[in-house]
């Protein structure tokens, strides 16, 4: 089997036409953020402002992204509005044909800046809301900004921008899921992301505080299914479940190095935002290599691309090109072996490592370890 695979990987014209084309780039403009959410998706080792790459290098990355087929640019962080050149970057991205999305906490922005972003060609805004209960929302964010967030959502609609509410859900706010859906409707959002915490980096440190019980999760799933029917064509609801309770792993990023890339504030290019947790991999930087080269040739993007890296039971599994082996960062974090089958798969020999965290779910509520530099 491996022989057949290696024969196919010669650089023939067929191979050339099969070069993978990425869909989206996540531009983490900065790690600076006034919030300190204990499930932040940024790496535990945050980049300082002095390490952030320049406006020109970001523009070049966006232009190179279009050349390799990227369709969408997500401007994220940290808090991306902390960068003064945000409008400039959105304008550039929009002019070269990218679909532009701003992923923000909404606490640093005013109407004037939203208008400027609208005029720069911004296509869509996503605002995070930590809970519908103000006190709990601010406790989770580690910042008093709940009312400001709501006000920002209203301004986003006022200037005419499409709105997604992103609500990271977990054991300490799932009981307010119905209210969150109602809030998204009241704010006239087109879309709601109900994203259960995924356990990497900061979230893994706070896992016992966040992991919901099976009962909580099942109840939430029913609420989402009902709301999808009620609000069909009115509010789109994307639902991400915590994979600890799943039988099959998630198709993380749609497969390593297949659809997506992430650029860190310092200019490193990663196959996903958590990839730096794989500390044995070398991630190339835009200061030294072009985006196209990194996408196609870098060691980091090719390390888990396709199926040839897979050990058993993944290698002979009929889902190997469905879930692409699940999540490499999760396998590494939970087993110490980045090639291992994702422990959230029922066929993984490491499935048992989930027993301990799952047994604690709902029984203890430790204090948060907040994200900090």
């Amino acid at each position: 089997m491996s022989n057949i695979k290696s024969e196919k990987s010669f650089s023939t014209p067929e191979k050339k036409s099969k070069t993978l084309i990425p869909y989206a780039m996540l531009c983490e403009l900065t790690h600076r953020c006034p919030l300190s959410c204990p499930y932040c998706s940024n790496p535990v080792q945050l980049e300082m402002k002095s390490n952030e790459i320049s406006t020109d290098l970001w523009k070049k990355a966006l232009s190179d992204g279009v050349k390799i087929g990227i369709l969408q640019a997500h401007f994220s962080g940290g808090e991306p509005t902390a960068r003064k050149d945000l409008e400039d970057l959105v304008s550039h991205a929009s002019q070269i044909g990218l679909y532009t999305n701003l992923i923000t906490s909404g606490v640093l922005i005013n109407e004037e800046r939203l208008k400027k972003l609208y005029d720069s060609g911004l296509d869509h805004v996503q605002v995070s809301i930590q809970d519908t209960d103000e006190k709990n929302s601010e406790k989770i964010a580690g910042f008093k900004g709940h009312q400001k967030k709501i006000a920002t959502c209203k301004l986003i609609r006022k200037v005419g921008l499409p709105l997604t509410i992103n609500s990271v859900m977990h054991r300490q706010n799932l009981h307010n899921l119905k209210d969150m859906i109602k809030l998204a409707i009241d704010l006239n959002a087109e879309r709601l992301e109900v994203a259960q915490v995924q356990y990497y980096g900061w979230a893994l440190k706070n896992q016992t505080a966040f992991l919901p019980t099976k009962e909580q999760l099942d109840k939430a799933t029913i609420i989402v299914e009902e709301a999808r029917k009620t609000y069909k064509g009115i509010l789109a609801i994307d639902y991400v479940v915590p994979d600890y309770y799943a039988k099959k792993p998630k198709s993380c990023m749609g497969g390593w190095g297949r659809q997506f890339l992430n650029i860190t504030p310092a200019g490193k290019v990663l196959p996903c935002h958590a990839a730096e947790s794989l500390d044995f991999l070398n991630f190339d930087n835009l200061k030294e290599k072009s985006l196209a080269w990194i996408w196609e040739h870098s060691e980091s993007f090719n390390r888990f691309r396709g199926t040839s890296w897979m050990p058993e039971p993944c290698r002979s599994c009929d889902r190997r090109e469905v879930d692409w082996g699940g999540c490499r960062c999760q396998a590494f974090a939970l087993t110490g072996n980045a090639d291992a089958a994702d422990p959230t798969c029922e066929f993984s020999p490491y499935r048992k490592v989930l027993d301990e965290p799952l047994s604690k779910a709902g029984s203890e509520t430790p204090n948060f370890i907040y994200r900090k530099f």
Partner: protein
Amino acid sequence: MNKLIKLEPADIPKLPRHAKLRYDEARKKWIINAPERVFELDETAAEIMKLVDGVISINSIVDKLHQKFSAASRDQISKDVISMLQSLADKGFVLNE
């Protein structure tokens, strides 16, 4: 609040601001960009969507397609157009002007 729409032949369909149609050179396909998703259109869907401009009605779109593809009956084209646009409307990606 946004509204769910049930498209009729006299309606004038359009894309909302958050859904953008364009030709993608890398994939050699027409696509619709939308929040966190991309619709890759087959040839039929592309022919329909290229006529969705917020100015002409579904009836006019069907007429134009019927002129171009006379092999198919007008009724069949009309059915295909409404069913395709309604599936996007159900997801909030087509509005009635």
